[in-house]
């Protein structure tokens, strides 16, 4: 029976993933900022087979509360076998361009809050000598694009941070999994027009669990994004800068 901590637990991708973990009879602790949704998820996960479920509600940008939050999780679960970090916001690029405050706020939500959590979690898992740190980044982190570089650069920071952590923690029996979804149909992307490249959160959730079960380092979800991003990364900068992406 795995002990699972889910941060950003009300994200559609996190919900799908936690349901799969509930079916496996996991013990779970949820962190998010929408208390009523967390309560609804708790009941849902218990019905689906979770062994026990606890939650705490907090704004993850209040980084000073992260320590307290992790203590609560450990008090409830006893240990941490799997940690999934899933919160994020799809930044309004144009609004960010007009506001330093907004830009830094987005960087905080999508990068700094995660860095704060990872700093604490890395030490916990390192001491424990086991566990999985699974973090949802994005294909957007692979290369900054004009239409989306505030979000993209935040995810790029998370990627680099995770790569460093993996390098450090792989020697300590800790798996660090970087999850890079492409387009996913969730509340975050409700406003965007959907096409054939879009996946649903259940598909992503299955990929996340497979990545965890197989001890992977980096997963692109669905898999074809690895090749799409390979091409995008390959385009020379002098060409790339002229494209409207």
């Amino acid at each position, binding site marked *: 029976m795995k002990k699972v901590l889910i941060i950003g637990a*009300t994200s*559609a991708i996190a919900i799908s993933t936690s349901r799969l973990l509930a079916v496996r009879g996991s013990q779970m602790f949820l962190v998010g900022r*929408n208390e*009523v*949704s967390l309560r*609804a*998820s708790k*009941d*849902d996960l218990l*019905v*689906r087979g979770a062994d026990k479920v606890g939650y705490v509600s907090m704004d993850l940008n209040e980084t000073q509360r992260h320590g307290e939050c992790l203590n609560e999780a450990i008090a409830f679960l006893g240990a941490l076998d799997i940690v999934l970090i899933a919160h994020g916001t799809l930044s309004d690029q144009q609004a960010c361009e007009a506001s330093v405050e907004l830009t830094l706020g987005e960087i905080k939500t999508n990068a700094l809050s995660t860095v704060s959590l990872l700093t604490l979690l890395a030490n916990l898992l390192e001491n424990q000598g086991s566990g999985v740190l699974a973090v949802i980044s994005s294909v957007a982190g692979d290369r900054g694009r004009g239409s989306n570089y505030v979000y993209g650069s935040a995810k790029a920071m998370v990627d680099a941070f995770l790569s460093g952590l993996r390098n450090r923690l792989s020697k300590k029996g800790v798996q660090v999994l970087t999850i890079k979804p492409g387009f996913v149909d969730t*509340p975050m992307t*409700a406003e965007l*027009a*959907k096409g054939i490249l879009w996946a649903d959160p259940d598909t992503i959730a299955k990929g996340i669990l497979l990545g965890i079960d197989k001890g992977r380092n980096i997963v692109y979800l669905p898999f074809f994004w690895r090749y799409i991003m390979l091409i995008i990364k390959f385009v020379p900068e002098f060409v790339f800068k002229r494209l409207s992406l």
Partner: protein
Amino acid sequence: MTKKYQSWGMYPKVEQDDICLTDRYQNLPADCPSMLPFGNGRSYGDSCLNADGLVVDTRYLNNFISFDSALGLLRCEAGLLLSEILELVVPQGWFLPVTPGTKYVTVGGAIANDVHGKNHHVAGTFGCHVKRFELLRSDGERLCCSPTEHVDFFAATIGGLGLTGMIVWAEFQLQRITSSDMDMECIKYDSLEDFFLLSAESDLDYEYSMAWVDCTAKGSKLGRGHFLRGNHANTGGLQATEQAFSLSVPVVPPVSLVNSLTLRVFNTLYYERQRQSSVKNTSHYESFFYPLDWVLRMNRIYGPNGFQQYQCVIPRQQSEDAIREILTAISFSGMGSFLAVLKVCGDIDSPGLMSFPKCGTTLALDFSNNSSKTAALFKVLDEILIAAEGRLYPAKDAHMSGELFKSCYPNWGEVCRLKDPNFSSSFWRRVMQE
């Protein structure tokens, strides 16, 4: 995003706004004069559409709330799909009380259309098994409805086509099973009389029955088909799903793949595929209840113009004659679908005011949408139906006149009275001639 919110028949095509509710404590948008809950779009016509208005997508309202596995009492949010419920409850020895021919419908949609299944003759409609639900009105009021609380809203919402408010969660009774397998028998029969004889005989001993009909057969072969009957098996495991894999029709082909030639070929092959007059076997419930679900997006085969389903029910006394007339008209038209369905419904009353089924026989089949020909045929069929005092199923309808609707559903006035003033649908405006 107008494309995403289509009905199953992909007809009519409408422009509408959409929003998603993300938790069950949220209220509906204030000051929106025309909204309609959207389940999973498995209704065929325009009853799940709201042209120039708003559809309120319920897909994220998909949490279980509680499940009493000793009593088989389930409470869940209204956007949960029946497929997800089956995954939870089948391994624990429970099954849906009533299921339509696809498991990809939501609980809210199942209540709003008061769906029926192959066991109508013994179990009635889905609404017969609903114990309680919460109804959210556009003014923020939340009504807990049951046979003893807000009784009028309870009755008006079951089969209420989503017009009385949004069902937020519902509680309903499941049925016990000891196996996920079905003992089934498929009998090849060759005339309409035989269908009625088989039904009368089967409905005493079999919980489930229906027939696939060859809608291209004429004359003495009219109404021939395969009669399917079955019961939940007593032995075998409790497996939630049978197959992990499914196919999907990836794109809408430029023209309909259904035409008079493919129809005749398919129907004949389908009819002849079984050599023996009767085949008994035991199979997983999925192949018994949801033979079409493994091809996802099957609705695309009708091409860009989409299709319409014609589903009617004819009262018992007039059943045989009227169904014969209807099948004759269809077979002569050369139109129709790969699979037409016939089923005898029982006399169990639904609590719903505008429930479709009634004691008699229901026939359902799809038609490619080539406007004038389809419309002309439907006119002929409607006349037969009116003479036989039958009615059409709003969940499948895109054509019935307001006059016909009002005469078939005499309780419409009461539903009108309890309708949420800010709710509406394309279907409702059509039949109310607004």
